[in-house]
Each structure stands twice: as structure tokens, then as C-alpha cells.
């Protein structure tokens, strides 16, 4: 057999990312100050982001693809990982888990996401997904001395494994049906053989829906999210609420829009009730939460429901809006979590909604930032959240789903209640006790970046919108 060394150009970012993660892991043995590792990771990610520019192409015999679509998602992952690392630096010290492998795991997880976004083959997809998931399971239980954190990790692991079984089952059925795991080849085979009405194909589409639905926390596969988000370290909750979700959307978009494009009608019909249920469960159950992390968990479920509308459009415009939405979501959600980590201090959890009472009087700047993020999550102009929702709703209307948008807007209106309740607590109630904020330069930078991004995207959206549109071209 003639072995030819594959073109590694398209995969260079992933390679470097892995190398950085390994270096962090090794350097952890030598370096006492873990902040250095964090800064090294950020610098490394910046370098990886730079290598993205020239990395487009297909390699490993068509199993790995780097295109505009994957690059855009990788940018989301970088925003996610950089902001999460920034808010972690001080936070994990307070939680007394200031270990170096924390950063290594975050980097490995991000590498997994990147591989998912670039997967042109179901096996590669599975590989990336497992790398991401396994790292995240550990991160969720990173506060070893906290029973809630342990519980979160175990639940996440068990249910994650369960959902992976669905994925593997789906992959094996597709392989049995088409004799290939290559996403493009699957599409070709289905259309050539006229398998659109095939029952096994439909079955495997549903199995994929379950597995991906789990990753993006869509109802009814969302049950793990509130428990895991609440128990995990807050910085990891921020990380998980954006990264794995975005990665899930990346593979959902690629598999459904490429491999299963000829059975569009079927999976759209499946996704519509799922998105309605997701928005409904997310927004309604969030109303009655008293723990802010749990509330944001339900909020993140609801946002997955909105983003699903972009997939439901089943066209490039919808995908572009979905990507745009996820990027915006990364900034506003991690921004909100950054404020939450600041409330955590020695001997004070700061996770209860009532802890926010009168924050505007005691810490006006932090309250103002939280206000911006809450407005953005609600979707009030001129914040980025408005732009995200506007474009996603607009593409859904253009695709003919006006009634679905009406439902989404109603749920969006309901969501104002629980987001603005935080604002109300901060601005209209008297502080009951003095909350000391844990401030650190890195959290400050993360907050500043997130807030500026939310406002700038809200006022000058065309840059991001055009970027997403350009990324989707030739998909």
C-alpha cells in the first residue's frame, strides 16, 4: 500500500491548538503561577486564530474540511474560550481549584469543537465531539470538594454517553444504508439512489436529531442542562453554555444541510415542534427560577430554540443568521456570567437572584454592565441581542415561517420578565446587605470586551452580518 502524507494545511490550527494544550499540561508541572498558563493560552489562541486565515481546503481524503463556515464557528469558539479563560483566572482561585490542567482541558475541549466544525466525515465528527465532551465532563466536576460540582459532572457524563449512543446508532445506520460516512458522499448516494422515502434514513435523521439536540440543549433532550449548569463552576457554565452549543449547531447545520439536504422536508418537520418546545420550556420554566445560574441555563435552552429557527429555514440566509446569532450570544451570555463570577467571593455564593438587590447603588458600573447584557439577552435595541433576533426572525419570515416567528416573538416577550427582573432587583430595590465584588483586571477586560461588543454590534451590525454571509458563501 502506498502511503501518501496528507496535506496538513487545513488542519494546522487544530494541530497548534493541541500543541498548546499539551504545553500547558506540561508547563503546569514547572510553573507555580497558574495565571501565566492562562495568559499563555490566550496568546496561543490568538496565534491559532491567525493561522486560520490561510487554512482553507480539504484534506485527509475528504474527511476534514476548512471553509468559511467552519472558520466562522472557530471564531465563535475562540471568543468563547478567551472570554471564559479571562473570567476563570480569579474565579478558580476563589473556588480553591487553581490548577493548571483547567486551562489544558478548556483548550482540549475547544480543539474538539474545532474538529467538529471542520468535520466532513461522520467519524471525524464523532472524534471531535468526544474530545469536546470528555474534556467538558471533567471541567464540570472540577471543584472536586463540592458535591454539586461532582453531581453535575457525573450527570453530564452519563447522559452525554447516552446521547452519544444515539449518534453512533445513527452513524451506523447511515453507513449500512449508504456504505459511506463521508458527508458529501452520503448526500450523493441518497439523491442518486432515490432514498428520500427510505424509513431507515428517516430513522437515522431522527437519531442524529436526538444526539445533536442533546448537545444544543433542545427540549426534550435538555434535562441535563439546568442541573449541570447550576453545579458546574460558573466560569465553566459560561464556557459550556456557548461552546458546545455552538459546536452542536455547527454539526447540525453541516450534516443536515449537506448530507440530508434531500430530505429537508422531513427534518424541518421534526425540528419545528422541537424548536417551539425548546423556546416554551426554556422561557416558561426560567420564570420561576431563583438561582441565577439555573435561570440562565433555561435562558440558554430558550436561545437554542431561537437559533434553531435559522436551521429550520434550510437555506444559506438562515444559516448565516444562526451563525450571527451564536456569535452575539457568546458575547452577551459570557458577559452576564462574568458579572455572576464577580458576585462569588470568599464564603458568599452570590447565585441567588435576591443577591442582586440594590446592586446599582453599591456597584453602579457592574449593575450597568449587567443591565446591558440583560437587555441584549431580551433583545432590546440598540444591543446586539436585538440584531441577532432580528436577523434570525427575518430569515424565518423570508423562508415562509411567519407563524413560527410570531410564536418566537411571544416567547421572547415572556423572556423579558425574567431578564428584566434582574434589572428591577438591581435598580429598584434597596441593597439588603453589602455585596463585595471580586474584581480582577482579567474579569474587567472580559466584561469590557463583551459590553463593547454587545453595543458595537448593536449599533454597527453590518460588519458581523456581512462576515457571516461571506462565510456561508459556497457552503
Amino acid at each position: 500500500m502506498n502511503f501518501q502524507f496528507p496535506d496538513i494545511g487545513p488542519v494546522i490550527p487544530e494541530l497548534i491548538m493541541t500543541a498548546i494544550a499539551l504545553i500547558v499540561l506540561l508547563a503546569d508541572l514547572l510553573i507555580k503561577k497558574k495565571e501565566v498558563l492562562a495568559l499563555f493560552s490566550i496568546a496561543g489562541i490568538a496565534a491559532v486564530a491567525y493561522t486560520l486565515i490561510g487554512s482553507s481546503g480539504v484534506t485527509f481524503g475528504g474527511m476534514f474540511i476548512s471553509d468559511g463556515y467552519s472558520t466562522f464557528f472557530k471564531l465563535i469558539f475562540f471568543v468563547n474560550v478567551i472570554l471564559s479563560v479571562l473570567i476563570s483566572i480569579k474565579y478558580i482561585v476563589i473556588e480553591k481549584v487553581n490548577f493548571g490542567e483547567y486551562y489544558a482541558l478548556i483548550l482540549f475541549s475547544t480543539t474538539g469543537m474545532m474538529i467538529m466544525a471542520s468535520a466532513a466525515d461522520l467519524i471525524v465528527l464523532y472524534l471531535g465531539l468526544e474530545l469536546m465532551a470528555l474534556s467538558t465532563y471533567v471541567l464540570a466536576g472540577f471543584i472536586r470538594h463540592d458535591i454539586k460540582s461532582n453531581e453535575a459532572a457525573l450527570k453530564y457524563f452519563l447522559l452525554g454517553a447516552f446521547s452519544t449512543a444515539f449518534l453512533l446508532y445513527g452513524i451506523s445506520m447511515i453507513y449500512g444504508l449508504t456504505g459511506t460516512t463521508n458527508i458529501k458522499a452520503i448526500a450523493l448516494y441518497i439523491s442518486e439512489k432515490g432514498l428520500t422515502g427510505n424509513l431507515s434514513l428517516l430513522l437515522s435523521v431522527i437519531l442524529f436529531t436526538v444526539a445533536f439536540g442533546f448537545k444544543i440543549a433542545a427540549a426534550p433532550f435538555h434535562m441535563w442542562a439546568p442541573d449541570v449548569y447550576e453545579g458546574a463552576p460558573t466560569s465553566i457554565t459560561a464556557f459550556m453554555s456557548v461552546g458546545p452549543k455552538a459546536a452542536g449547531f455547527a454539526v447540525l447545520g453541516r450534516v443536515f444541510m449537506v448530507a440530508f439536504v434531500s430530505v429537508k422536508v422531513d427534518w424541518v418537520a421534526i425540528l419545528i415542534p422541537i424548536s417551539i418546545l425548546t423556546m416554551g420550556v426554556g422561557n416558561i420554566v426560567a420564570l420561576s427560577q431563583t438561582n441565577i445560574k439555573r435561570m440562565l441555563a433555561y435562558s440558554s435552552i430558550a436561545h437554542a430554540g431561537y437559533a434553531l429557527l435559522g436551521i429550520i429555514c434550510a437555506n444559506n440566509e438562515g444559516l448565516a443568521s444562526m451563525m450571527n446569532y451564536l456569535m452575539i450570544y457568546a458575547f452577551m451570555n459570557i458577559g452576564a456570567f462574568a458579572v455572576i463570577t464577580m458576585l462569588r467571593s470568599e464564603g458568599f455564593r452570590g447565585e441567588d437572584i435576591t443577591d442582586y438587590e440594590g446592586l446599582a447603588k453599591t456597584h453602579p458600573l457592574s449593575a450597568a454592565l449587567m443591565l446591558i447584557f440583560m437587555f441584549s439577552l431580551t433583545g432590546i435595541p440598540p444591543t446586539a441581542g436585538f440584531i441577532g433576533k432580528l436577523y434570525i426572525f427575518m430569515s424565518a419570515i423570508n423562508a415562509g415561517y411567519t407563524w413560527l416567528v410570531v410564536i418566537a416573538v411571544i416567547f421572547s416577550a415572556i423572556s423579558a420578565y425574567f431578564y428584566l427582573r434582574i434589572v428591577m432587583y438591581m435598580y429598584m430595590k434597596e441593597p439588603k446587605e453589602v455585596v463585595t465584588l471580586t474584581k480582577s483586571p482579567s474579569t474587567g477586560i472580559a466584561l469590557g470586551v463583551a459590553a463593547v461588543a454587545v453595543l458595537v454590534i448593536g449599533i454597527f451590525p453590518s460588519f458581523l452580518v456581512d462576515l457571516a454571509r461571506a462565510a456561508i458563501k459556497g457552503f
Partner: protein
Amino acid sequence: MEYYLLIPFLPLAAFILNILLGKEVFREKAHWVSILAVVGSFIIAVATLFDVISGKTLNEDLYTWIVSGTFKASVGFLIDPLTAVMLIVVTTCSSLIQIYSIGYMHGDKGYYRFFAYMSLFTFCMLMLAMSNNFLQLYFGWEGVGLCSYFLIGYYFHKKSASDAGKKAFIVNRFGDFGFGLGVIIVFLTFGTLHYLPVFNNMTGIVGKTVHLLGFDVSLVTLIALLLFCGAVGKSAQIPLHVWLPDAMEGPTPVSALIHAATMVTAGVFLVARCSPIFNLSEVALIVVALTGAITALFAATIALVQKDIKRIIAYSTISQLGYMFLGCGVGAYAAGIFHLYTHAFFKALLFLCAGSVMHAMGGELNIQKMGGLKKYMPVTYLTFVLGSLSISGIPGFAGFFSKDEILWLAYSSPNPVGKFVWLLGTIAAFLTAFYSFRLIFLTFHGKFRGTHEQEHHLHESPKVMTIPLILLSIGAIAAGWVGIPHLLGGGAHFAEFLKSVLGHPEAHGTHNEEWMVMGISVIVGLSGIGLAAYMYLARTDIPVRLAKNFSSIYRTLFNKYYVDELYSFTIVRPTLWTAKNILIGFTDAKIIEGIVNGVPRLIGKFSGMLRKVQTGLVHHYATIIAAGAFFIIALAILLR
């Protein structure tokens, strides 16, 4: 011409700085930030004016916020002669009034807040004037309304002030509702909100009608009248004039800037800007002319008997705004804008003088309790007289040229109501001269009628207040000289300058007629002053006897024709009654609270169910995932 961008954004920057840092950092120096910014804007506005005079214009989008199909929301600027005039008016008045405010607002608790809002207002007003599309116009329009609300209710601990703020806001809702509808119809008709394509395609819809409430209404007329609704609200014309007198609860510099010189003239600007629309609808023009003329006369009669110094000037503002609309209605847009421009100077001057008087009198507003202030405050007195001569249309002063141009163009206009509105305008001119000098004679002449304590405190205002008065009085005299009519040997430069935007009105009349109209206005102006002098200097018993003998007329005028009472009776009270008994008593208590309490109860139950589902047990969760999968599979197979 790229530097023009700084004109609105300097005040915006000042607002941001002041609102963020004013309280902690700038404190009693907060005025510097705002004043430097607005003076900067003024200088650039002057440079822009020269550019425009040299023939440059500009119409470009700065950036696009949202694109959705054919809908495009963009920030764009249009710099043409009309904009240039507005820029000069806004930045000049804003600069001088803010400088004056250093003295007037000195020592106020919310000093930085005041200047921050003044900057924000200036920004919004400039955005409104510089816009090249209806959406940004609407943004600026609502923005100035919001600032007006903030500043009327500046002394928010005073109930009357916060009520007045609310009143202004609510009354403006009525007008803006129509305005908003007008903008929407423009978009639906033309598929764009930019002025240029809309105006260019306007002739294409002439003759089109829409079916409305059983009538066929011309589309052009409908658009024009809806836009005019907004103008009526913002510029306080009948029947939406009621908010402006109450708006005097705000600090006097606010009254001068927002409720005299700039914001309230936005309606006139809107009509002038949309002249290509109004020109195509005779009905709309007649409505505009009549509304203006009737308001001019109506407000002037109320001003005759009021006692509150600021309210008299407020009614005078309403009346003068009426003139501007009168001019626009007969197609003399340039004359309307000319009056807007001269009015800004003399009316800002009159308000600031009134503020100076209040400053000396310890906040007293009732002119019956003043008198003889001439010797205590000579600068205020002199400038007040100059402003009043200007508003009375005495030849040589700014007000004369603009008012005379409006009246002449009304008289000579082919508009069927031209002569009628000229007559109303001329009567109003007589009344204007009368009430303006009644105010002066009661305030500055005769004996002091206030308390001893007040008399003891009487003093001229500090320089920082009197210098803006002097500068404005120069404007009140000389501002009109740029528009001296051909008849008097001038070049009518102002109208020529605006001709490219606003066109040239048709005038059918001879030179003799023009002399006659001018002569009549001068005569009524002088006789108004003369009568005021006779009644309030020589025979002070006459006003008292008149009030007694014609008490019903006097009371009607003093109570402003009972319009507020009428609204209270027909709108406010029924609304409150409905709100209390139907909305709160029934809809709220039964329906909404039923839903509000019922839904949470339902959600509570639902939550309870979900909480049972959300057991925290992993195998339950796994079961649900599996059940979900099976459910979808079953459904998919069944529905095949």
C-alpha cells in the same frame, strides 16, 4: 465636507462625558464640556454655511444599521441650504443659551444633569435637521421630545413640573401617531424612506386615491396631512397647543432653547423639508395655512390678558409659530423659514430676559407684582425692548422683514384662502405689538408692586447672563437684514439662498399693493404699541374697567378659551373613568389579573409537573430522552 459630522457628534460626546463623569468629576465645571462642544459645533456650522453658499451640497449615508429586504435603516446626512440655516439657528441659540445658563443655573443641585440634557437635546435637534431620510428625522424628532420631557420635568420634585412634562409628552403622542403613520405610508408607497427618491417620485402618485372610512382620499393629501399632524403637535398648533404654556415649568433657558428657538420650530422645518409633498396637495396647503393663521390669532388673544411672564411669551411663541405655518401654507416656505430664523433670535432673547427678571425677583412670575424694574436692570430692560420691537414688526428690526414677507406673500398668493389668512395675520400682528408692550410697561415701568424684600434684592444679572442678551439682541435687530425685500432696495438674499430647496412662491400683486401691505403691518404694529402705552402708562384704570365690563370675554381669554377644561371634560376624564372603572376594575381585575394570576398558577402547576420531571435523577432524564426519541419516531412513521 467630511468635518460636518462633528456638528452633531460633539454635543453627543459632551452628553456622554457629562452623564458619566459630570456628577463625580466635572461638578460645578460641567458647563465647560457642553459649551466647548456646542461652540465647536457652531464654528463648524458656520464653515458649513460658507461651503453651502459657495454651492456645495451633500447627501450621503454614513452607515446602514439594518437592511431587511427593501427596508433600509441608515444614518445619513443631507446638507443643503435649508439644513445650513437650521444648523446656524440651532448652534447659535444653543451656544448663547448655555453660556447664559452658567449664571442662571448656578448652584443648582443637578447642574451636570442640566448641561448633559442640553447637549443631548442639541445632538438630537441637529440629527433631526441634518437627516436625509424620514427614519432618522423620526429618531431626532422623538429624541428632542424625550429631552423636552426631561427638561420640563427638571424640577421633578415639584408636582406641577412633572405633570407638565407628562402633559407635553402625552399631547405630542397624538401628533406623533399621525406622523408615524405618515412615515409608514411613505415607506409603503415608495419602498424607501430617503427624501430624494421619495420627493422625486412624488409626482407619480398624484391622482392616486385610497379608500378611507368610506371616502376616497388623495394619497398625497393623506401623506401630507399625516405628516402635518406631527408638526401640529411638536409646534404646538391648534388643537394640540395646550402643552407648550405648561412646559414653562422647566428652567427658563430650557424654555428659550427648546420651547421657543429650536424644538418647537421642528414642525415648520418638517413642512418646509417636505415641501415637494405639500406642493402637490392644495387641500393640505389650505389646512396648513388656516391652522397657522387661526393659531396665530387665537394664541395672541390669550396672551393679551395673562399675568405669568413666561406664559405670555409662550403664547406669543405659539402665535409666531402660527405665522410660520401660515407662510408655508401659502407656498412661501422660504418666508416661513426666514421667520423661524429671526424668531429664534428675538424669542430666545425675550425668554432669557424674562429669566433675568425672574432671577432678580427671586423666581416671581406674576407681572402684576413687578413694575419699575427699568432702573434696576437697564441691560435687561433695553434688550427686552429691542426684542419686543423686533417681534412687533417695527421697520428695521429682524421681525419686520420676515413677518412682512409672510403677510405679503399670503396677500398675493393664488391660494384661495390667501387674503383671509393675511387678514387674520394682520390682526394678530396688532395684538402681538399690544401684548408685547403691555408686558414691558407692566414689568419695567410704573411703580414696583412686589414685596419690600423683593425690592431690596433687585439687581442686574451677572455679565455671563447679560452678554448673551446683548449678543442675541444684535441678532434680533440685524438677523433680518439678510432678507431685505427688493421693494426696499434689498436683494432678498435669504429667499434666493433657499430657492434651490424650497422653490419660489407665486406672487400676484403690484408694487402698490406690496407697499400697502407693508404699510398696514407697520401701522398696526405701531398702533398696538401706542394703545399699550395709552392703557398701561397713561390711563391705567382702563384695563381694570375693561376686565370688569367685559368680564365674560376677559374670563374666557384668561382661561385660554377653556381648551384645557374642554380636553379634561372630553378626553382626560372619560379616559380616567374608563381606566378606573373598566380597565382597572374589570379588564385588569378580572381579565388580566385572572390571566396573570391564572397563568402563574397554571405555570406553577406546570412547573410542579416539570419539577417532578426534573427529579435530578439521571435515569429519569435518560428515560425522557429516549421517550422523546421514540415519540418523534412514532410521529414520523404515523404521519408518513
